[in-house]
C-alpha cells in the first residue's frame, strides 16, 4: 500500500503473483459472504413483511430508505474483509461511494426524467428496453462510476494494485445503486418490505457487479500503457452488461400477470457471481502476466512478440 506503483527501478506491477493468488481467494470468499449477507437481508425483511402493514406511510418510507442503504453498506463492509491485507483507506472508499451517489443524484432527474423521459418509451418494445438500458442507463451509470473513481481515487498513491480499481469502482457503483433504490422507494411512497427488499438487493448486485468489471479496466489503465480504445471499450462492455442484466431480469421474472420476485433474486445472484468470477479471473491473469514480464525484464531477457501463426492453419 505504501509503495508507489511506478517504481524508478522497474516497470509497474500493480500487484504480485503470490499476493495475487491470496487476494483472489479472499476476493471470492468475500463475495460469497456478501451474497450470503444479502440473502439474510432479504430473508429478514421477508419474515418481517407483516410489520409493513402496521406502519403508517412515513414509517414505511423510513424503513424503506434504510433498506435502500443496507446492501451498499454490506458490500462496503465486505471490501474490508476482502482487502484486509492492504485495506484501502475508509475515507477514500467512502469518498468514492459518496461521489458516485452525488453525481447520480444530481443527474438522475435531468437525464432520465427530462432529457430522455425514459418512462414514456423504455418498455414499449423489447428492443427499446434493451437498447435504452444499455445506451442510457448503462452508459450514464458507468460514466458516473468512471468519473467518481477518476476524481477521487485514481491519482491517489493508495490506488496501488489492480484490485483497488475493482474496489473503488464497486464503491462508486453502489453509490449509483443507492440513488436508484432511493428513487424506487420514494416513487412508490415506501415499498412492500418483502418484494422491495428483493428489488433493492437486485439493484445493488447489478450495479456493484458490473462496476467491478469497469474497475478492472480502470485498474489496468492505472498501471499500464493502454490503447486509446481500451477504457472506452471497458465502459461500453460494462454498460452492455448492465443493460443486459436488467433486461434479462425483467424479461424472465414474470409469468403472465404474476411477477416472481424470487426469480429476480436468483438470476441476479447468478449473474453477479458470473461477472465477479470473470473479474476475479481477469485480475489474477493480469497480475500473473505482469509478474512474468517483470521477471523476464529482471533476468535480462527481452520481450518479443510471438509470431502470428497463419499459414499452417490455412493448410498452405
Amino acid at each position, binding site marked *: 500500500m505504501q509503495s508507489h506503483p511506478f517504481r524508478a527501478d522497474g516497470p509497474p506491477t500493480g500487484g504480485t503473483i503470490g499476493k495475487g493468488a491470496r487476494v483472489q481467494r479472499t476476493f471470492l470468499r468475500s463475495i460469497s459472504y456478501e451474497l450470503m449477507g444479502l440473502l439474510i437481508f432479504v430473508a429478514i425483511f421477508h419474515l418481517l413483511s407483516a410489520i409493513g402493514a402496521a406502519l403508517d406511510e412515513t414509517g414505511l418510507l423510513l424503513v424503506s430508505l434504510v433498506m435502500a442503504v443496507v446492501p451498499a453498506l454490506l458490500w462496503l463492509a465486505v471490501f474490508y474483509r476482502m482487502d484486509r491485507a492492504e485495506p484501502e483507506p475508509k475515507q477514500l472508499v467512502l469518498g468514492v461511494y459518496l461521489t458516485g451517489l452525488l453525481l447520480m443524484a444530481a443527474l438522475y432527474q435531468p437525464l432520465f426524467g427530462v432529457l430522455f423521459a425514459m418512462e*414514456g418509451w423504455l418498455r414499449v418494445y423489447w428492443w427499446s428496453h434493451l437498447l435504452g438500458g444499455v445506451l442510457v442507463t448503462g452508459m450514464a451509470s458507468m460514466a458516473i462510476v468512471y468519473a467518481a473513481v*477518476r476524481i477521487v481515487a485514481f491519482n491517489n498513491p493508495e490506488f496501488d494494485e489492480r484490485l483497488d480499481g475493482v474496489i473503488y469502482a464497486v464503491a462508486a457503483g453502489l453509490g449509483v445503486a443507492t440513488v436508484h433504490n432511493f428513487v424506487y422507494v420514494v416513487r412508490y411512497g415506501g415499498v412492500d418490505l418483502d418484494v422491495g427488499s428483493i428489488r433493492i438487493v437486485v439493484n445493488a448486485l447489478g450495479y456493484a457487479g458490473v462496476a467491478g468489471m469497469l474497475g478492472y479496466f480502470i485498474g489496468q489503465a492505472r498501471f499500464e500503457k*493502454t490503447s486509446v480504445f481500451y477504457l472506452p471499450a471497458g465502459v461500453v462492455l460494462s454498460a452492455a452488461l448492465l443493460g443486459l442484466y436488467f433486461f434479462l431480469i425483467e424479461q424472465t421474472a414474470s409469468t403472465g400477470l404474476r411477477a416472481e420476485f424470487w426469480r429476480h433474486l436468483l438470476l441476479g445472484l447468478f449473474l453477479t457471481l458470473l461477472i465477479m468470477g470473470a473479474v476475479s479471473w481477469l485480475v489474477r491473469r493480469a497480475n500473473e502476466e505482469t509478474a512474468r*514480464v517483470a521477471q523476464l525484464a529482471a533476468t535480462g531477457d527481452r520481450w518479443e*512478440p510471438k509470431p502470428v501463426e497463419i499459414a499452417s492453419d490455412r493448410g498452405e
Partner: protein
Amino acid sequence: MLWVDRLIKPSPTNAPPSPGEPVRNDLAVATTVLFALILALGVRNQVYNAAQYATLNDGRMRIAYPDRWVLREQDDSGFTAVLLAGSSAYATRVEVSSRLLREGETLEQARFERSLQLASELTAYRELESVAMQVFDGAPAIVTTYGFVADPMSELGAIDLPVVVEAQDIQFVDDGWVYVISLRADATLWESAAHSFAVVRNSIRLRTPDDTGSAPEAVRGFEGVARP
C-alpha cells in the same frame, strides 16, 4: 485469442502510462458516452415515431396512429385506436370520423355542430380553447380543446370513480369531406400521451397558420353546457 490477450495485458512490455494518458482516456470515455447518448435519442425517437396507418374513404385520407395502439371499430369513414396498456381506466385513444361536407357548409359551421353534439352527449362537457391551424398543404383546420367526465368502469359493470378526460378535436375539410380527429386521454395522463398524439398530428402535418411561429388565432368559443 488476441482480444483476450489485449484485455489481460494491454502493454506487453509492462510500460507505464504516459503522463498525458489519463486525460486522453477521459476524453475518449466522454466521447464514447456522448456518442451513446446521441444514439439513445435516436432509439427514443424511433419508438415515438413508430406508427401504423389507417386509410379512409377509399384511400382519400391516410392517418397514422402509434404502432403499439390497438385498432378498434374501423370502417371506411372512421376508426378508433386505443392504448390498452395505460394506467388509467379510461384508455388513451384517437377517434377519427368523417362525413361529406353539406352544400354551403363551412368549417366553422361544422365545428359548431360538433360542439353541440358533444355538449349533448358527454357529461360535464367544457370547451377550453379553440384555435385556427393548418393541415397538409395549408388547408384550414380548427383545433378545439375540451374536457368531460367519463365513467369507463361502470360501462364494464364495475364500481370505480369517474375519470376526468382531456380531449382535443382537430377538424378540417379535405376533398369535400369533413374530418374530425379526436385525441382523448385521462387528464392526468394528457402530458405523458403527448408523444403518442404527436404521431397522429404529424401525419396530417398540423401546424400554426403559414408556419409563422406566432400563437394561433383563437376561434370564437362555444359555451359548453353541462349535461345534468
